């Protein structure tokens, strides 16, 4: 029972960060209909930012997100304005090639600048944990989960209550109609990509005290983000939140009951089952 609870709780905590990665990707997809294959690389850029803020200026990774978030927002907005806006509405394969290319430039650029060495960010609490009824809870993971929950809540509020948030949702629902209603869809796209990038960067910052950092780290997370987004329903933020936590838990429990080598299989079987019974994803609406 302890083992089950332990894996459930670690799964939920890790899943929280997955959710953040998935939400970023789903916002970008929702607004632009572009699958961002550079998403993991944005996360990697966030990790490097966090690492250097910590080693050079001694800023705690969890506090550094107040710097990383706006910077990543600007970076994402820049990428959207300069590159992605040009290919909205063009062939999907061109969009895929563009985002993959952007990811390659990022990872190889970082490798050129900082070498391929693994970077380990060790804070005083990096491997600390506390015990509740025999279940060990990782301190950094718990903090990052709390921050994720906070960010997600603010994001909901922003998208539901503010004018800009509503404009973004309108653009996501129907780009042309939104444009006819006087919404500047190009601007909304910039904001959406900025948001997506800043969420990816934040996720990077949040996992950097417990994970390791290297230029190619992004690819693992791109795939994960993609699975989470499709599982949750493409474009659905609630779906991405659910999907992230579900994947975290499936990995964790699959690792224990089927063996660690099988946990990916468990995740993908779950993924296939969802697609089989609900092709639009958990929270997705099937649109014609």
């Amino acid at each position, binding site marked *: 029972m302890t083992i089950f609870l332990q894996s459930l709780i670690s799964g939920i905590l890790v899943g929280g960060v997955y959710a953040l990665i998935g939400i970023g990707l789903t916002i970008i997809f929702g607004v632009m209909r572009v699958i961002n294959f550079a998403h993991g690389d944005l996360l990697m850029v966030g990790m490097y930012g966090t690492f250097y803020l910590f080693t050079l200026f001694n800023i705690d990774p969890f506090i550094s997100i107040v710097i990383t978030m706006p910077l990543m927002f600007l970076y994402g907005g820049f990428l959207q304005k300069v590159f992605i806006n040009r290919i909205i509405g063009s062939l999907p394969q061109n969009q895929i090639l563009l985002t993959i290319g952007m990811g390659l430039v990022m990872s190889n650029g970082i490798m050129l600048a900082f070498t391929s060495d693994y970077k380990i960010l060790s804070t005083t609490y990096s*491997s600390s944990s506390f015990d509740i009824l025999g279940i060990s809870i990782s301190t950094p993971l718990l903090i990052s989960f709390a921050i994720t929950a906070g960010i997600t809540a603010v994001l909901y509020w922003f998208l539901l209550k503010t004018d800009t948030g509503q404009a973004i949702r309108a653009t996501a629902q129907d780009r042309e109609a939104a444009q006819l209603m006087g919404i500047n869809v190009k601007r909304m796209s910039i904001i959406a990509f900025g948001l997506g990038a800043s969420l990816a960067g934040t996720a990077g910052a949040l996992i950097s005290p417990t994970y390791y950092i290297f230029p190619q780290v992004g690819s693992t997370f791109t795939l994960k983000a993609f699975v989470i987004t499709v599982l949750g329903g493409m474009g659905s933020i609630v779906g991405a939140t659910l999907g992230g936590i579900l994947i975290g838990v499936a990995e964790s429990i699959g*690792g224990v009951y089927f063996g660690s080598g099988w*946990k990916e299989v468990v995740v993908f079987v779950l993924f296939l089952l969802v697609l089989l019974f609900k092709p639009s994803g958990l929270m997705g609406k099937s649109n014609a």
Partner: protein
Amino acid sequence: MFGKIQATALALILALPMAAQAAKVKIGFVNSITGPEAPIGENLTNGVTLALEDLKKKGIDVELVKEDDTGKPEKSMAAFEKMATRDKVAGIVGPYSSKCANAIAKLAEKYKTPLLIPVASKEEITRQSLKWTFRLSATTYDYATILLDMATSLGKPKTIAIINENTDFGTSGAKSAKDYAGKKGIRVVAEEAYAPGSPDYRSTLTKIKSKKPDLVFMVSYVADAILLMRQSREIGITPQAFLGAGAGFATVSFAKEKAISNNVFSSTQWTGDVNWPGAKDFNARYIAKFGKEPTYHAATAYESMMIMAETAAKAGGNQEKIRGALKGGKWNGIMGEVKFADYEGYTNQNKHQMLVEQIQNGIHQTVYPPKYVSKKPVYPFPGWK
């Protein structure tokens, strides 16, 4: 008439080494220069760089053909084919990882190009009766045996948990550990193979903790070693000893993480303070040149390049001759005595003496076998700070 032949022979004998020394040799080098194993690959590259300097001092000018396999077997194979056919190299040194080395071992046979594998340890690589493939390093079986020999000489472990990544090196290491544990009467209570690169091993480690193993044996590349130990600390696993089979546990970045690396044992092919000829000097030169400590990967790559280039130069680049000279030769350098022998199903395998090092306050110290000890081992594991 006879005198003439004698004179010619004498002239030839005198001229040959001269000719060999003056001649350029073309040697191929495959390595993981980019990709997930790049941090270890860098050690191999640096080792080879030092070897080229020393070869030059000996009058051997090596033209190095360098190829990056990014840690992928198919790229390794392509690199081998290119070097063997287009570049027409005399011999090839590399690649780093077991999966790549295993993939190209048979190509050496096909192209009749001598291949010297510096460090890839999967047992099967030299167990396929391949005539053109040579291996300098010990095998994963030796990684496991030396660690378990040490553990049983220091304590009385009864149970062992094995965690490995599901790669060629990882599974081969785990299998060896399981076999040898059986021979030593140590019961395997948990076996976990994981896919590398996952951020969370906590559930696996919790399962292992519940089995209360005396020994925890791990086979992992670079950064997963750090994650495994970090999360072991979180979960609070306290066996008699943590045994790391080389790779990630032997790296400098792992040792630097003092909170989690302290007292972890690691089997290794080489240490900076071992008394093999030139080893200490190599260590010092490496630190001076690259600003960090070399790992055993650097030493094996250095020695492999030295052996391959010298042999190739002496044989004037003739591949059949190089193979013969590798097979019959004997060396004594920074990796100790090297001889490519056939034994216990192995072909062209150097019977290399493994060492065990323990990280004590951020520094790898040689602690086993007694003949090579620099510091006393700390056993059993004193618990987490």
